[in-house]
């Protein structure tokens, strides 16, 4: 019974830490737009937090530039378990328009494990909210099946 309560609580109060790993800040202003009256994510209990210690989901924007890479790693390590990573936009996925440039590492998954990718350049605020909701569902599924291991098998079979 307590297990279900904890799962419900995690679903209802995902706190997000936004990290700009060298983006053109289009995704960043779209993420900040989700906090404002028209999209208002506080309805879902989502709060934007300042310190990695308080965050559940790390929302990374931008193709990780070489200088940001180890800082991104450090921020990820500081977050308490269970932690999830959402990579925003085409840049977050593969480096997008900046793929192959000499100072870019082409994608967030080159540095830290990513759980959800959001498409778009930049994704609209409602697409970002949809990405976060997908991440919450994934979090819920993980909690129900005890951790991430089941995902590896699913990827193989899917």
């Amino acid at each position, binding site marked *: 019974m307590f297990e279900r309560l904890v799962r419900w609580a995690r679903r209802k109060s995902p706190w997000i830490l936004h990290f700009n790993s060298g983006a053109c800040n289009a995704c960043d202003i779209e993420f900040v737009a989700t906090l404002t009256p028209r999209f208002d994510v506080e309805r879902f209990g989502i709060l934007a937090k300042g310190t990695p210690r308080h965050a559940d989901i790390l929302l990374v924007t931008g193709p*990780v530039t*070489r200088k940001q890479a180890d800082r991104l790693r450090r921020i990820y390590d500081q977050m308490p378990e269970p932690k999830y990573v959402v990579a925003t936009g085409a840049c977050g996925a593969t480096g997008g328009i900046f793929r192959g440039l000499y*100072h870019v*590492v082409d994608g967030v*998954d080159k540095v830290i*494990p*990513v759980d959800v990718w959001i498409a778009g350049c930049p994704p609209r605020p409602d697409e970002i909210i949809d990405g976060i909701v997908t991440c919450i569902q994934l979090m819920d599924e993980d909690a129900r099946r005890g951790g991430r291991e089941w995902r590896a098998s699913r990827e193989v079979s899917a």
Partner: protein
Amino acid sequence: MARVQGGERVTVGPPPAEELAVRLRGVEGVSDVVVQSSRRLSARLNPAHVRAVLLRLRDAEGCWHLSAISGVDTRASIEVVYHVSWRDGVVLSLKAAVPRDEPRIDSVVDVMPAANLYERQAHDLLGVVFVGHPDLRRILLNEDWPADEYPLRKDWKPDPKKRYGGPATGGDARG
């Protein structure tokens, strides 16, 4: 356009491009002045006279703003282009060509402080050494970028074997 010759700094009403060109041709170290449009001029600059010319432009000719310094690698040489602008919108681009293998030029930071950051950018990406610059350190590239490589040079290709900084773990850190 009353122009007052004289030592002390007077903000002179800047003459239109053509008249400025005429007066520029008289300046020592400046050659083949070209008027591109009503508000654009370009000229070649002898690297040795960089400081003298900019000092004169600032004091006597009333140019008030060093808008930018661009480094251009023209394979034959590296051109450091000083874009100087007047209050009425005229922009003069002074091109100083320095040899590729030993790109050295005087820094103009104490003439125009705005140059501090532009020179560091040219140094970082093209390797131009600005003599007299108080704080000439790498600007853009990350800490463990190999010291002797300048990405904006035409002949530069990323060398796969070398590490240009980046993820501490390297490789694909799948979860």
